[in-house]
């Protein structure tokens, strides 16, 4: 695809070239004809005069080779103009010439038409090179007969003039073409400036800068375009601003509600924990109500905590503080403290990522909670793997899995993949885990396992292996928390309680 600039330049150059060629050729032909006509008319007059007046006057008795050479006619002819003379006496010998530089046999190179016309007694001419020089040859006889005279007039001045004219025309054509190109460039720039400012503004808007506008001005088609473009951008910006305002109001509302809930919730949680401690002393029906109360308060607490955590993400109040973390030790420690029943499969080598132990604890803890509530009573498997670009932690259960079309929504807030919600789950755990994962530069993905069950995978970018040192935050607060068999790829699952 050729741009407007190129097409405009080509069109203008073609137009100019055509015009210049036509004018140039016309001029050239005209000048050429005028110059030749002038020289020819002059030459004819001279030839006529020479043949009709000078020759009969000097040699009234007829022209022979002897009389002619003695007559000095050649010099008489030259007095009237720059001319050389060839005289063909038609006696079987070579013609006589007025100049030693003029070979007598040059006649044989004259065109037949000229020779025939002369033989027929007419005055005739021919433009042609004589002895290597452009010349006008006029041939004829005196009225009384006699030898054939050929007068050779040099045409070099015409050729030189035409040469200069050609040069001038070529230079003029080149100048015209350059001017055409420059003009095309200027016009194209004039046309394209608003277009390119329009596309720059559109690109900025596409990139999220809704304040981009096209400079408006003038009264041409582009001014209308700019006005329409800017009107569209205004309307887009105000719509987006309205949406953002309402979204931020929603989020602030959630944050405020959660915040306001916290004071009564703090009292509730403390109260419930005291009731829990005294459950044994309550009558049976009150005890059951107490148990339910304790569980519900706990659920409410998880929900409010999770909402507050998400509203901190929404307020962009969360900042990642990354440092080298050994994923193997960290995952082992998290699993040990949160779901010791889970089967753990880890590489022998440490897997070092840029991470944050507390966020990893939130992510993997939430994945474990999800596995436990999603597939209660089944085995949960946790697997740490690493390849060249990423480290992954997979938390997999043997539950029913989720419908394929639900997989993509699994990390949305309050998304319910299974109708029954297990207690203790707010419906926000996976959304929170996904926010933490994004903050660590990674992400979460879910898939159904071929053999049944759901697998959720945390993927984290991998650092170059660091030199072994005590510089790692091992995620293990205490040495006696660590596994006693770090080289065993699979942790033996503890017996179920």
């Amino acid at each position, binding site marked *: 695809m050729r741009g407007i600039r190129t097409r405009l330049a080509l069109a203008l150059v073609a137009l100019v070239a055509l015009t210049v060629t036509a004018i140039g050729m016309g001029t050239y032909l005209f000048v050429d004809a005028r110059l030749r006509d002038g020289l020819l008319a002059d030459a004819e007059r001279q030839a006529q005069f020479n043949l009709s007046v000078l020759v009969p006057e000097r040699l009234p008795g007829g022209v022979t080779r002897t009389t002619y050479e003695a007559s000095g006619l050649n010099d008489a002819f030259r007095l009237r103009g720059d001319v050389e003379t060839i005289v063909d006496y038609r006696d079987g010998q070579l013609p006589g010439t007025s100049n030693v530089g003029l070979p007598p046999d040059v006649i044989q190179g004259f065109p037949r038409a000229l020779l025939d016309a002369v033989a027929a007694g007419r005055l005739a001419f021919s433009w042609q090179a004589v002895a290597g020089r452009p010349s006008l040859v006029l041939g004829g006889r005196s009225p009384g007969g006699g030898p054939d005279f050929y007068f050779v007039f040099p045409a070099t001045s015409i050729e030189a003039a035409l040469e200069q004219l050609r040069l001038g025309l070529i230079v003029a054509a080149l100048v015209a073409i350059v001017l055409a190109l420059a003009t095309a460039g200027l016009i194209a720039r004039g046309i394209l400036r608003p277009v390119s400012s329009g596309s720059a503004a559109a690109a900025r808007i596409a990139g999220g800068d809704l304040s981009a506008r096209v400079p408006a001005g003038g009264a041409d088609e582009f001014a209308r375009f700019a006005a329409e473009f800017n009107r569209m951008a205004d309307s887009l910006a105000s719509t987006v601003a309205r949406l953002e305002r309402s979204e931020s109001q929603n989020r602030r509302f959630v944050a405020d509600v959660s*915040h306001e809930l*916290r*004071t*009564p*919730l*703090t*009292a*509730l*949680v*403390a*109260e*419930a*924990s*005291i009731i829990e*401690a005294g459950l044994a002393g309550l009558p049976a029906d009150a005890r059951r109500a107490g148990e339910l109360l304790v569980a519900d308060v706990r659920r409410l*607490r998880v929900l*409010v*905590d999770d909402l*507050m*955590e998400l509203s*901190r993400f929404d307020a962009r*109040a969360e900042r990642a503080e990354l*440092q*080298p973390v050994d994923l193997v030790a960290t995952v082992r*420690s998290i699993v040990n*403290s949160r779901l010791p029943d889970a089967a753990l499969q880890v590489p022998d080598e440490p897997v070092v990522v840029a991470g944050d*132990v*507390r966020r990893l*604890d939130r992510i993997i803890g939430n994945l474990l909670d999800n596995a436990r509530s999603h597939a209660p009573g089944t085995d949960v498997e946790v697997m740490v793997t690493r390849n060249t670009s990423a480290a992954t932690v997979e938390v997999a259960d043997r539950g029913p899995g989720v419908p394929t079309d639900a997989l993509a929504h699994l990390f949305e807030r309050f998304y319910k993949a299974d109708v029954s919600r297990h207690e203790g789950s707010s419906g926000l755990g996976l959304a929170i885990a996904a926010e933490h994962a994004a903050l660590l530069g990674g992400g979460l993905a879910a898939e159904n396992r071929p053999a049944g069950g759901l697998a959720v995978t945390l993927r984290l970018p991998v650092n170059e292996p660091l030199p072994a*040192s*005590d*510089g*790692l*935050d*091992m*995620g*293990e*607060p*205490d040495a006696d*928390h660590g596994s006693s068999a770090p080289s065993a790829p699979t942790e033996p699952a503890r017996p179920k309680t």
Partner: protein
Amino acid sequence: MDARILLIEDDPSIREVTAIGLRNAGFEVDTAPDGAAGLEKWRRSQPDLVLLDVMLPRMDGLEVCREIRRESTTPVVMLTARGDTIDVVVGLEAGADDYVKKPFEMPELVARVRAALRRTRGGDPTGPAATIFGPLAIDLAGRTVSRDGAEIPLTRTEFDLLTELAQRPGQVLTRDQLLDRVWGYDYLGDSRLVDVAIGRLRSKIEEDAVNPRLILTVRGSGYKAARPG
């Protein structure tokens, strides 16, 4: 346990139920509904530990904490709103020893209170009675630190932190190890507790807290005490 706790909390429900929970756990509890009254009660009764809400009417918890620190090394545990990260750091910088996020369950709070009180008890009777750490003389039995014969007032937390490090010169202790040994967190405590306490400790024992020579930071890892010499 007959430790006396002063609970300063403005919300009546939280104040009452927390007091009940602490009494059930065997503590003697006195309460105050605002900062000024709390400080007044603290001066009068000199409790073993103060539980301090951050958001308080009349004088906020941070100010109360600073006032207490001006006069005493009594352990202070702040009650903070979860996630109010500024509150946590500012509270620790004001001299709090530990904090508990709201909402809390009573066993959780009782455990933090016990851990803070444990630090106020005497040193290990089987260990050495005193040690020298650079220019500091540490009396482990009497829990005092002095420099050139002048006692440096350290809180119990700061004292424990110093001795944990000073008794192992050159050995790196990670934040998690320090959280476990000094604060009693066995799983994922808040590392800012360590960092803020180290900062306060340095400002008391180092000649130039910006270029510490006694307690050194090991980048990406934790802290260690400088080796002698």
